[in-house]
């Protein structure tokens, strides 16, 4: 069993969902970002989703756009993102690391070289936001050759007819985007998550994680009752945004928020 399967299996054996935490690599700078990731792992996060900063993140809301902008302005490059992963991998040999990225960053210099570098650094899986299964044949073949798992999105607008195509393209897990729109904090989670997760389960045996708009312990609790994993992103990125210039405060705040969210994972 690899790192990703093990993480989901461990959570399942503990009768809870896995906590998937998102941060943008290099936000607000390399060292703070590395410390932030380590803090999350120490605070109950099961799977780390690392956003690769892109100049044009069209699926992301303002919180994640600004995070990417901070990272790029602080000099984050593809090579430094890999370096961040190598440092994390050295400390956390069993931590599943998932890239959350846009296709041009993978494709631009040749997908094969990119996937090779990513897996060598220690990346386990990749979610490419703007790459639907219809266009993913090349990348999927490359990923399979190099042992990189692929993650694909199902949206509320995805009709049942598309589910088999999406689920057969995915090899890591399915990411259910719980609402139409971009990433960002919302007051309440969507009400139809149980039905949506059940709908996807009929099409696949892969783990299903739910994300977009989940920012509080009660959100986590509501989602964890149905999904295999709960993704929290903007709520964590906001811990950075609200404490810029104070790396210690960033780390403390992240630890507090992540621990609080993790407390919502256990199923009744």
């Amino acid at each position, binding site marked *: 069993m690899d790192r990703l399967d093990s993480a989901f299996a461990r959570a399942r054996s503990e009768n809870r969902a896995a906590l998937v935490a998102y941060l943008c690599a290099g936000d607000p700078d390399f060292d703070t970002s590395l410390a932030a990731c380590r803090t999350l792992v120490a605070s109950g996060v099961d799977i780390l989703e690392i956003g690769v900063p892109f100049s044009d993140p069209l*699926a992301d809301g303002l919180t994640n756009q600004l995070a990417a902008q901070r990272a790029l302005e602080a000099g984050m490059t*593809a090579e430094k993102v890999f370096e961040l992963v190598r440092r994390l991998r050295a400390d956390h040999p069993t931590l599943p690391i998932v890239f959350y990225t846009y296709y*041009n960053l993978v*494709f631009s210099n040749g997908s094969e070289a990119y996937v090779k570098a990513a897996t060598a650094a220690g990346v386990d899986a990749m979610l490419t936001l703007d790459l639907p299964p*219809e266009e993913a044949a090349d990348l999927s073949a490359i990923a399979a050759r190099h042992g990189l798992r692929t993650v694909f999105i199902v949206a509320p607008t995805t009709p049942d007819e598309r589910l088999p195509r999406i689920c057969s393209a995915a090899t890591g897990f399915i990411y259910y985007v719980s609402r139409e729109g971009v990433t960002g904090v919302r007051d309440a989670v969507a009400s139809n998550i149980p039905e949506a997760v059940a709908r996807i389960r009929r099409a696949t045996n892969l783990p299903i994680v739910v994300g977009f708009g989940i920012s509080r312990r009660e959100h986590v609790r509501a989602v964890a009752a149905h999904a295999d994993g709960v993704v929290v992103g903007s709520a964590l990125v906001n811990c950075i945004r609200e404490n810029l210039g104070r790396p210690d405060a960033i780390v403390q705040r992240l630890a507090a928020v992540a621990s609080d969210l993790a407390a919502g994972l256990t199923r009744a």
Partner: protein
Amino acid sequence: MSVAALVDPQSLPTPAGHFGRYGGVFVPETLMTALSDVGAAYAAARQDPAFRDELTHHLKEFAGRPTELYFAERLTRHCGGAKIYLKREDLLHTGAHKINNALGQALLARRMGKRRIIAETGAGQHGVATAAVCAKFGLECVVYMGAVDMERQALNVFRMRLMGAEVRGVEAGQKTLKDAVNEAMRDWVTNVRGTHYILGSALGAHPYPMMVRDFHRVIGAETRRQILEREGRLPDEMIACVGGGSNAIGFFFDFLSDTQVRLIGIEAGGHGIRRGEHAARFEGGRLGVLQGSKTYILQNPDGQIELTHSVSAGLDYAAIGPEHAYYREQGRIEYAYACDDEVLETFQLVSRFEGILPALESTHALVHGLKRARELKPDQIVVINLSGRGDKDVNQVARLLNVKL
């Protein structure tokens, strides 16, 4: 250059939206169904004589088609070479070719039962055209525009507001066209069920490059009929500016199979071909994926999208329409560029010699067209697509010439 093996242009794109290795559908999952719905609605509409008749009717009565093919007599004499004709898209209602597509897509949105329209705009021409058709058809209209462009094109912002559109400034990134497209796509992802996105150029995910091209084919179809009436033969060369490339592909399309007609697209050379100083994708770009489509893109070694510059907001964009990338690879359409200083000079020249103020975008085509006319013989013919009028650019030109108004 061999173009003998050119595939029938009508057969492209493929059903999946590919022009050779270009184009496609590279969008978040939330939009996949919306795009296939638009594709299906458009496929039905284009087969429906009632839809075509209605569009033709509005193109005539509202937009003012057909536009003239104008013989530029004094420019021709001034250059001393080939006859210069201008396709007068600048005479259309709202001032540019953009109204062709805005009308087509608004009718399509109405057919699909979508009452809310969003659009992006660079120079403001597409935004103004969209605001106008939304006012005409009673549709809600939100236009995204980069904050820098809003300042460059303040007059067009006011025009849109007068016609009832809400103009939302975009402060992200470089605050120009590319950022406006990102923001429009974010809106669409969020409001996908009741909203139609009227994308303004032959860009983005399938079916947009095909649909926008089709709505602009009328430019080339008229040009063909008009030049045959006037001259009894096809032109030797046709020249159009290329931002995303909608006016150019519409102008060229009906001539693609006439391989004796040389087709040239002109990109924005800005201050010259140096990183961040231009928007000539075929000069400094390479293959990539941006905003839905695989095409030539200005990007850094990591694949981050580069900053661009052009004196004309409408050409100031990091990607080129995928069909252009395809026909360049096929050797059927050639590409060159014009720089800001040449554009300013030609803007004044054309104004003085013909009494026509061209849009700065279209002036890029004029720069190259006049160069070509000088090199060709008097019995040869150059047709330049005058895609828009320059009234919107007067303040900008005055500023660049240090003239106080």
